[in-house]
């Protein structure tokens, strides 16, 4: 038995496996609703599952049963498996833990095996097949739920990381044309790229001419970080803006000098305050330029 990768919802079942499933379903189908209700009742006490595993109204139950029948008898697993995958996503989005949803599979198994044993006690051959069928069924179900559960979890983590990254590289407009970027934490190449991209967009959007990139909150400034910063400074220059780096600690400065880096292109100023003063001066010059130019244009 195998389930294809994401994208295809058709498990490859051997003839024997299909037969096992049918044996199991023959016994389970007429009791589908009642077993479902039992499980829901048991789950009501589970701290996490309580709100999830409801008995469902009559229609839902009938739909579910129909889907499984379509799969097991009709060989069309599409609807059933995609429903299970939805369930997996929902569980992940609701913050359900792995053990909680795994427990649902165990609960089903614990109801079904005794049921089958009772029903088929006189037919060991069929009982063996049906029990095999339970296994296959629950495996398929858990695989589908589990797969999409993990996918959804990973998606959520990535989204959270994106939000964190967005928070960690804010671009603030101090005054018209002056942007302040206070960097906090370690700068790796991914963060540096994100920062550069955001900053360039901001320069275009806010017509910024002066930027203060404050690295007071960046603990380790090695040559890699220095290179990233230089790259950022250069990129902003392409758009006619000046970027000043403020907050480089004396220790870090010494390190960089010892590493033999040409810090001329880093445009460092002292503290954040120094940076803002210098940037404001740059802005004032630019504004004066524009005013002068407009005067000239106005002359006959």
């Amino acid at each position, binding site marked *: 038995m195998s389930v294809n*990768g994401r994208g295809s919802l058709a498990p490859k079942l051997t003839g024997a496996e299909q037969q096992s499933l049918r044996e199991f379903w023959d016994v389970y189908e007429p009791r589908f609703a009642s077993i479902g209700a039992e499980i829901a009742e048991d789950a009501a006490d589970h701290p996490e599952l309580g709100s999830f595993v409801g008995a469902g109204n009559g229609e839902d139950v009938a739909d579910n049963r129909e889907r499984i029948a379509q799969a097991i008898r009709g060989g069309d697993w599409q609807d059933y498996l995609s429903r299970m995958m939805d369930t997996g996503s929902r569980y992940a989005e609701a913050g359900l833990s792995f053990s909680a949803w795994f427990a649902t599979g165990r609960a089903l198994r614990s109801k079904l095996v005794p049921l089958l044993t009772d029903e088929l006690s006189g037919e060991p051959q069929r009982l063996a097949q049906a029990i095999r069928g339970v296994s296959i069924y629950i495996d398929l179900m858990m695989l589908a739920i589990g797969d999409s559960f993990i996918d959804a979890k990973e998606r959520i983590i990535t989204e959270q990381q994106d939000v964190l990254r967005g928070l960690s590289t804010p671009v603030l407009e101090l005054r018209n044309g002056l942007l302040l970027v206070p960097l906090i934490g370690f700068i790796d190449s991914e963060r540096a790229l994100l920062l550069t991209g955001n900053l360039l967009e901001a320069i275009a959007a806010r017509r910024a001419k002066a930027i203060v990139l404050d690295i007071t909150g960046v603990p380790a400034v090695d040559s890699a970080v220095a290179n990233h910063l230089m790259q950022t400074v250069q990129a902003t220059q392409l758009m006619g803006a000046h970027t000043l780096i403020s907050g480089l600690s004396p220790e870090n400065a010494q390190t960089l000098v010892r590493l033999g880096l040409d810090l001329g292109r880093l445009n460092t100023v002292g503290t954040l305050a120094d940076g803002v003063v210098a940037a404001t001066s740059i802005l004032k010059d630019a504004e004066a330029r524009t005013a002068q130019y407009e005067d000239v244009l106005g002359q006959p």
Partner: protein
Amino acid sequence: MSISSCIAIRADVDIISARQRGRDLGAELGFAKTELALIATAISELARNILTYAGQGEIEIAVQEADGRRGLLIVARDRGPGIADIALALQDGYSTSRSLGIGLPGVRRLMDEFEVTSEPGSGTVVRAVKWH
């Protein structure tokens, strides 16, 4: 939607055709503006390398699928003199200051997957993928 294109690189106008095709296919795949610029620039540099070192070659641009993801595949082929020392050519800073192109390290930085196959005398193949 076309799946793959092969653009002959024989003259500077072909550089533009190649990167335009890359941009178009990239747009169809849903890449953002920033990524499209990166793709177009990478193709431009690869095409330029072909012209500079081999005189002619081709660039293949195609959609790549794996693990449910889709990406843009770029393959730059030429039968030029080949790269004698690939390790050296891939070294950051090796040809960034030279006037001929920005070199392979730059293109590698722009793409997600990148590999160079080259033998002196039998040409070069650069294969790069950018995943969506």
